[in-house]
């Protein structure tokens, strides 16, 4: 059975399942219920198949390489390569898609008779299929086709809730940014084609030696911008905080959990696989980008009170952490330390997996809350832990995982990332130790700030008293939604406790690259559940988990049985300083983050507007109402995008003059062009 699944036919069936789901949903668009069931069924079946396919290929002895059909165009081959790296990403995509689809069965009910469920199912399935093609395509042109399928399908999912003007805006910004990114990617592939004569990745890899250094550098910069736009690194991130919140929540989970990782996948593929060897500064650039993205991502998340935007900014932060691992891998490779580079690569792959699980869990949790309260504004939540206990528990698990608290999975990948950076500082012949110091400092700051941010988020959403009527009447989510979330929560714990085994598999993924073969001695050891980095440090997840559990049980037992048996527990009102206790007394998420924002005001540029209306305009002693508006200056829009836009606009206005509308003018242009071509060809 498993041999059949991981054969080319198995992969085609995988794609067909999603295509069938897409087409069937489109055909059934007149009946919301059946369109939902049809598309969900095929998405789930496809994802299950894909999880098996991914797992099977991860442990397969040799990579799967095949081509579908004969292409009419010589440059465009529908060729696929499923090596361990691709298999790992297929696994992640399908794993997350499985639980998001499960969740989606109940979640999309709110859109019945409001929007077409058929088109949602169509684009949803197409989106997953597009992502699968992206990570398996091994021909540049075919890859770009897949990339476009993924981008366009996700664009339509972003603007699905089209009655909100804001969503349309976010969607178009996404469309523009993703195509700016794609143009950079196309340029990179064209450069590679010019010097290697092929779009096939295998031929590019073989011809990488013929590419001059300057061209390689150009390809690096182009693909960093192109794929970085999709991954959401700062300052190319501006589409992300708008687009992820706009989509339905299970789609946000997929976009944030896995789609942005396709950018990471291609960076690994191009830098580590295709363009070996490369200069030192590539890794340094990635490290700095990662440090900036992680630190600024979490700082911007702190300023948000829109729950989904907050989560979207945390995706930027986590992409930064992934880049720290990847950047250290590249740096170590340039410094001829492949054994250390493998630590960095495993760290970034592990964090990719972990971020996919806990971020989609958090988005699904946020979706459940929004479904009940009909707002994304965290200031209008509160007290939901009593009304939605399971959602609250799972959101807590997600929060603990994303803030790297043991024994959840986030801790172990962040631990590995720290180790990679520490090795960079400790290495005796490292010329770039200060870059590593900055990166490690950024990671440590990020960890602390993320903790603050999730205390704020969890506290504002679930704790204290409800701050709006909707929050008062919230109910627990329906079974399929809970099932999706429970599975992801369990996986967050499982990948944490089993981190030794997970990193063992990921070490094999990294070990497949040519640069990591024939390592003198591996620096990263993963034996018996331990993760050991050289003689430097080690961590054993099951012991931490067991110790926590045992200690908790012991404390509860000792206190409740031995120490205070006869004491009674009463409930009473919170001490209210003698006034009436209202929800206005609780801390708001804006208030919670305000002190950190003020500390970082040099970077964040917070703004405050005050308006006071007086009862008597003359005397100005008795104010009738006061209003304070807190906000932020978006420095990227102000200093990067607005000037760029102004330039493009000005240039277009000049270019417009060419379009005179006179037919003889156009004939003149044609004449000039022809003469030009003639002269050029002489």
């Amino acid at each position, binding site marked *: 059975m498993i041999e059949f699944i991981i054969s080319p036919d198995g992969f085609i069936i995988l794609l067909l399942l999603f295509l069938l789901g897409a087409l069937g949903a489109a055909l059934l668009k007149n009946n919301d219920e059946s369109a939902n069931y049809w598309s969900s069924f095929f998405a789930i079946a496809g994802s299950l198949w894909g999880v098996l396919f991914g797992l099977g290929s991860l442990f397969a002895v040799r990579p799967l390489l095949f081509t579908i059909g004969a292409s009419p165009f010589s440059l465009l081959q529908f060729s696929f390569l499923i090596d361990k790296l691709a298999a790992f990403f297929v696994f992640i995509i399908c794993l997350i898609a499985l639980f998001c689809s499960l969740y989606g069965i109940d979640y999309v009910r709110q859109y019945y008779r409001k929007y077409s469920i058929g088109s949602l199912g169509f684009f949803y399935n197409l989106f997953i299929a597009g992502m699968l093609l992206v990570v398996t395509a091994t021909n540049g042109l075919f890859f770009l086709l897949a990339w476009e399928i993924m981008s366009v399908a996700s664009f339509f999912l972003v603007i699905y809730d089209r009655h909100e003007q804001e969503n349309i805006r976010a969607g178009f910004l996404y469309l523009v940014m993703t195509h700016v990114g794609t143009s950079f990617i196309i340029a990179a592939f064209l450069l590679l084609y010019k010097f290697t004569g092929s779009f096939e990745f295998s031929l590019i890899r073989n011809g990488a030696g013929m590419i001059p250094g300057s061209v390689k550098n150009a390809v690096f910069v182009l693909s960093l911008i192109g794929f970085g736009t999709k991954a959401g690194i700062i300052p190319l991130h501006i589409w992300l905080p708008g687009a992820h919140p706009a989509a339905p929540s299970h789609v946000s989970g997929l976009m944030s959990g896995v789609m942005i990782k396709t950018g990471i996948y291609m960076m690994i593929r191009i830098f580590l696989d295709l363009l070996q060897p490369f200069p030192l500064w590539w890794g340094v650039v990635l490290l700095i980008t990662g440090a900036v993205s992680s630190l600024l991502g979490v700082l911007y998340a702190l300023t948000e009170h829109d729950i989904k935007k907050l989560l979207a900014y945390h995706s930027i932060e986590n992409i930064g952490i992934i880049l720290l691992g990847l950047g250290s891998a590249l740096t170590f490779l340039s410094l001829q330390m492949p054994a250390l580079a493998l630590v960095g690569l495993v760290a970034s792959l592990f964090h990719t997996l972990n971020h996919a699980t806990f971020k989609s869990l958090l988005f699904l949790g946020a979706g459940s809350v929004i479904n009940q309260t009909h707002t994304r504004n965290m200031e209008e939540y509160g007290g939901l832990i009593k009304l939605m206990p399971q959602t609250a528990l799972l959101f807590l698990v997600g929060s603990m995982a994303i803030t790297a608290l043991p024994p959840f999975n986030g801790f172990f990948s962040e631990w590995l990332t720290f180790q990679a950076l520490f090795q960079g500082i400790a290495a005796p012949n490292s010329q770039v130790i200060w870059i590593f110091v900055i990166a490690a400092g950024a990671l440590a700051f990020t960890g602390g700030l993320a903790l603050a941010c999730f205390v704020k988020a969890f506290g504002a959403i679930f704790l204290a008293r409800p701050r709006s009527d909707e929050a008062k009447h919230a109910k627990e989510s329906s079974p399929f939604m809970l099932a999706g979330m429970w599975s992801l929560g369990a996986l967050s714990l499982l990948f944490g406790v089993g981190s030794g085994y997970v990193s063992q598999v990921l070490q094999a993924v990294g070990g497949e690259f040519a640069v990591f073969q024939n390592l003198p001695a591996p620096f990263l050891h993963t034996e018996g559940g331990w993760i050991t980095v050289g003689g430097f*440090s080690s961590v054993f997840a099951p012991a931490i988990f067991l110790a926590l559990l045992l200690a908790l049980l012991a404390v509860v037992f000792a206190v409740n049985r031995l120490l205070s048996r006869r004491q009674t527990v009463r409930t009473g009102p*919170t001490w209210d300083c003698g006034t009436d206790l209202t929800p206005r007394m609780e801390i708001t998420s804006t208030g919670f983050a305000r002190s950190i924002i003020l500390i970082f005001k040099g970077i964040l540029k917070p703004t405050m507007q005050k308006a006071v209306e007086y009862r008597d305009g003359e005397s100005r002693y008795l104010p009738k109402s006061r209003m304070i508006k807190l906000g932020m200056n978006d420095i990227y829009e102000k200093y990067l995008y607005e000037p760029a836009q102004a330039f493009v606009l000005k240039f277009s206005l000049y270019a417009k003059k060419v379009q005179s509308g006179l037919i003889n003018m156009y004939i003149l242009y044609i004449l000039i062009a022809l003469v030009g071509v003639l002269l050029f060809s002489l």
Partner: protein
Amino acid sequence: MNIIFDILQPLFVPLLSPLLIGVVKKIKAKMQNRQGAGVLQPYRDLWKLFHKDEVISQDASWIFRMAPYIIFAVTLIVGAFIPIFNLNTFTAPLGDLLAVVYLLAIGTFFLALAGIDTGSAFGGFASSREMTVSALAEVGLIFSFFILSLVSGSTNLFTIADSVLVANITSLQPIILAGLGYFIVLLAEGGRYPFDNPATHLELTMIHEAMILEYCGRRLALMEWAAANKLFIFMTLGANLFFPWGLMHEFSLAALIVAVAVFALKLSAFCFAIAFIESGIAKFRFFRLPDLLIVSFILNIVAIGLIK
């Protein structure tokens, strides 16, 4: 004999930490020309609190009810994962510095959540301040330990304690700088002057005491005890990583007596330093605290520069 120590190791921290608080209070009282309560008073306080009835806010959820247990359990674990006066314990391979830092962060996380949970204005603001201070302190904490890792070639706390002792004289300067950086973090994380006033919750600027304002009875006892544990852990780490003399490598009665005596001496020095600071200076304004924490970070950066 060693096995007995292995089993007892997780109990050292909770059993000794109230004494530590008592000693600090006593020294403070003496410095301020007061008689002060006996050093065993914290034990009596805990005993009293454990036998009181409890009132819990009607707005509180299970987070509020469970947080004291979780926070206390976390300090127990960390207490077992760090070198106290015996280096040769079965938990030694688990004493990774990042694991300890992030395990302590679990306690901070639930403490801050419990502060918000009852919906009083005090708790929420205190949680906000606590998270601000601990977010900024974390980088100083990780880096000051990391300096020692650079010197000793391991991030395992037991190995660090073992090998800082034999580190050559050129690494003395960075270790001193890292120690200063660590001491600042100790004051921040232990909730001490100039960051926090451990004696009262009467003003809004108090952090820890305002977060646990709604607790009473056994849960308050656990919260106070856990805070004492945390201070004990931070002092022990400071004493054993930066001044690792007298630690036991192999079990023998002589070594045990020396280890306990030296350990007591080192902790007394820390208690004296804290009492001295708390009697000598005023609490800082909240927005001046980041400057102090950044100083801790910069001291560590300078230390790295000195090593390299």
